[in-house]
Each structure stands twice: as C-alpha cells, then as structure tokens.
C-alpha cells in the first residue's frame, strides 16, 4: 500500500456542507434499464450523484454499485421505485431517508442503516451496527446477520426482521411497527415503548420498562409467516411476543402542579 503523505482536507461551507463542487461522474455502464458502476475511486457525493443521475434523469430501474468500501451515507434520500444492489459493505447512515427503492446490500452496514425509511425494502446479507432502522416509518428492513444496540429506536412503522441476535435496548421508545428478532436480545428489550410489537425467537436478557409479554393470535402467525415467505427465509422459529404494558400512559393525568390549581 502507498505511503501516506497528503493530508485529506475536507472543507465545510458555512452551512456545514462538503464537496459543493462535486460533479456527476457519469461512468456507469448502461444496458437497457440496468446500470453498473464501480465506486472505488469516487467520493461519497459523487457516488450519490451518480445514483440520482441514473435513477431520476435516465429512469434506470436497476443499479448495481461495486466497491462501496464501507463509506458513509451511501444510497440516501432516494425517493423513487427502483432496485439498487451494493456489492459490498456500507458505513454509517446507509440507505437512510429513502422512499420506495428496493435495496440489496451484499455485505455489512454500520450504524443507523435505513433510518427514517418511509417505504421500500432494504435487505442486508451480513451484520448491521447499532440503531438499525432508527425512526423507521414504513417498509421492511431485513438483516440476515446480527444487529447492534437500540435496533428500531423510535420506530414509527414498518417491519424490522433480524435473523441473528440483537443488542441492548432493542425497540427503545418504539411507537408503532413490528420487529422480528430470531436470535437472542440484550438487556432492556422494548424499554419505554409506546406501542408496536416485538417478536423474539431467542433468549431475552431482560425486559425494559413497561414492556410486557403479549398474547399470541392467529394474526401474528399469519404476519410472521408472510414476512418469512416474502424474503424466502424458510419457516419461522418459535417466537415470543412483546408489547407495551401501557402503564406509563399518563396523557390524561394532570401534572402535580396543575392538580393544585384545579383542586
């Protein structure tokens, strides 16, 4: 490998933006409605620029990105129905803020993968870092390996399906949506959740505040089997269901200071 001699100068403008002069490289090999490009030599903004150019301007439906090399913020903000395949690992915030695309990552992702997804599908073939599917609004996030801590923190919809195990505080403050964790989960499962459902296949180290076991219904069986069928994952393992105990619901109660005023 080369000697390191130059300092990589990243310059920020007053708004905190970088690489303002990044141009779209337009290096993809296009074949009908499919395109392939190698991201090895490109910067983050150039990779995302190329993706946008292909999907929005040329109307390409099927893009393959080679060598993403674990860089951050790739494939973010895509608001169109299309299929994107990353032939390698992504860094932090991969496929965040998307609405519509079907993304396949043949590698691993870092923290906050598919955060704020509105709709679409993100399938990760390997492991994911912490905060996978943070503030997920809709769509499906499928992780075939293990995930880190706080999976689906603040989740407001959609489904997170993890074949491996998950870390601490899974489903922390989730408000809606579903999670299926086939492996073990760490301490504090579903801590402070408002609503939603978490299915766990393995051992639960400890339940978080106001997370309680739920009653299994036929609708649960149908839902889990459907998700496993869609992604070709075989038959689902035996799962336990966890929901919100709603003991922390105090919306109608007055604050102690207010109560004095009323009484």
């Amino acid at each position: 490998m080369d000697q390191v001699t130059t300092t990589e100068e990243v310059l920020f403008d007053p708004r905190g933006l970088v690489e303002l002069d990044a141009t779209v490289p337009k290096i993809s090999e296009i074949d009908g409605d499919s395109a392939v490009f190698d991201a090895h030599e490109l910067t983050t903004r150039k990779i995302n620029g190329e993706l946008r150019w292909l999907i929005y301007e040329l109307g390409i439906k099927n893009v393959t990105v080679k060598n993403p090399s674990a860089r951050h913020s790739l494939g973010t903000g895509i608001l169109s129905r299309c299929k994107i395949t990353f032939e390698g690992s992504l860094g932090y915030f991969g496929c965040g803020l998307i609405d519509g695309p079907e993304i396949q990552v043949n590698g691993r992702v870092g923290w906050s993968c598919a955060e704020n997804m509105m709709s679409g599908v993100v399938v990760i073939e390997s492991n994911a870092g912490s905060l996978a599917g943070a503030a997920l609004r809709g769509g499906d996030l499928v992780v075939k390996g293990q995930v880190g801590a706080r999976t689906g923190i603040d989740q407001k919809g959609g489904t997170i399906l993890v074949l491996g195990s998950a870390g601490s505080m899974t489903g922390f403050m989730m408000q809606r949506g579903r999670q299926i964790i086939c492996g073990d989960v760490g301490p504090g499962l579903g801590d402070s959740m408002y609503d939603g459902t978490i299915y766990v296949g393995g051992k639960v180290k400890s339940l978080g505040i106001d997370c309680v076991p739920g009653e299994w219904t036929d609708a649960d069986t149908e839902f889990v089997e459907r998700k496993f069928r869609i992604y070709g994952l075989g038959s689902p393992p035996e799962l336990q269901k966890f929901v919100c105990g709603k003991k922390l619901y105090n919306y109608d109660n007055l604050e102690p200071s207010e109560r004095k005023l009323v009484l």
Partner: protein
Amino acid sequence: MCGIAGIIYRNGGGEHHVGRDMTLMLQAMKHRGPDSTGYALYRTATPNSYVMHVKLAEANGHRDFDFDEKLRRQRREVESRVRELGAQVHDVQPATEHAMTMVFDHDGDLKRLADYVEDVRGVEVLSLGHSLEIIKDLGDAVTVATEYKLNDFVGTHAIGHARMATESDVDIANAHPYWAYPFPDVAVVHNGQLTNYHQWRRRLERAGHRFQSECDSEIIAVYLAERMAQGDSLEDAMRQSLDELDGVFTYICVTEDALGMAKDELGAKPLVLYESDDIVALASEEIAIRKVVDREIETYDPYESEVMVWTR
C-alpha cells in the same frame, strides 16, 4: 466523538508497518476528531533497554522570549536526571522542538525515574517501556505521522486515537493514548465520557497515583495500572472496570503482547471488529479497517459489557 483504532499482527516476526497502517486508519476517521492524534506503537522488545518519550512543553502553550533556551535547559535537565539515577543512556533524539526520545538501560525503580524526570517543570513522561512508544500531538494523523516520522515505524501492534475534545482542553497533555504510569508497556485509548471521574481521581490520588491532565480518559489507564498492581490480569482488570467506571465508553487497552477492548453496558460507543488468522483490526468505523484490509470482509460490532483480549 473521537475515533479509536487498534491493530495486532498475529503472524509473529514483528516486521510490520504498524506506523503506516495506524496512520491510514486514523486519517480515515479524521471526521471523528481532528483536534489531536495519538499513537501507542510497539516494536520487538530489547531486554533491559527502555524507550522513553518525553514532552518538554505544550505544542500550543505560551511562548515567551526565552522559550527556546528553556527547552534546551529542560532537555539537558531530563538527560542528566536519567543519567543521575544510574541509567546507561544509548540514544537521545529530539523528536520535535517540544518533545524528545531517550533510549537507555536501567535496572532500578521505574516509578522513581518517571517521577524524578517529571519533577522538571512542564515535563511529562508520555511513555516508558521496553517496546511501547507513545507519540501524540496536535493535528490529524498525517500531520503527526509526518512530524514524528511514523510511516517508517516497524513493529508488532498499535493503537491510535483521533480526538474530538469534549471534556478537556486541546493540548498534548489531554491527548490520548495514556500510558498506565508507572507500568511499562501499557497504554489506553478511549472514546466516551466517564461520569464518576472525580470520585475515581480522588481515590486513585490517595493511592499515590499521579495525574498529568484533566482528561477523564486518564482514569482508565491509571485505574487499570492500580488493579494490575494488586495482582489482577489485564482481562480481569478490564472486566472489573465495567462495573466500577460509570458513563459511556469503549476503550482499547494494549500491553507488550496483548490488545484488548471493553465496551460499557449501554453499548453507546461504536467499535467494529475484524478478525482473521494473521491480523485483528478494530476501529470505531469499518472505513478505517478497510484502509488496511482493502477487500470485502466479514466484520461485526461487539455487544454491550463485552471484554475481549487478543494476544500476538
């Protein structure tokens, strides 16, 4: 935020470009902290012979008219104090204007030697060991590596730190890694915040340990040193630290032949691991590991409350 990294080669020999590799890793994480960069690098040990890195003054401290003369005086004073305690000095190098490196043979008490040298005003012993060399200064990895000529460093394993100062000043005293004074060849880098810093600092100061900075991370190094002084192994000391240190942290501790990581019970700070037969690399972000292993690799995040130790 801070970026931490560690690399250990398992296939012996000790002939690896750890200086260059660590620079590549830390430079890739420059966005996690551009304030200062530090290295703890290890070469094959030579028995009896010690390497000592000494800071003579702060890189960004106050400079009065006789600053150069003062540095020269301190340089002479440090050298004469080492000789005075019966050490056989082999080599004295001015690493930079405000730092120096000494190589000497010594069979006396190391704590006494370090204390005596640090008694010179403004002087801090950054590291002292058979194989450990701590280099830390302001700027990003390439700046520090160029200044201290680390690209040519050949050794066995290393850890590094790219700092974003949150709890204390931007200067060399508050930069990582921290040497586990007075233990030769033990160093620590940390990403996070410790909330029971003052409690531990008072406790450890009563036990006779010295603190060179206001940085909460220094506690970890001194804490591990204290536990090992009481007979704990590195791994036991690290496990114990999970209970006794509060806050959010991921830290990497390194000794002459081992490298270990510990993560707090919330798993709040990142660390990505890559293990293979000939190399173990760990960093806050995978992008750093990919600078030294440039291909698709299988990596994972260790879970909360985990302690792992690898030996070379």
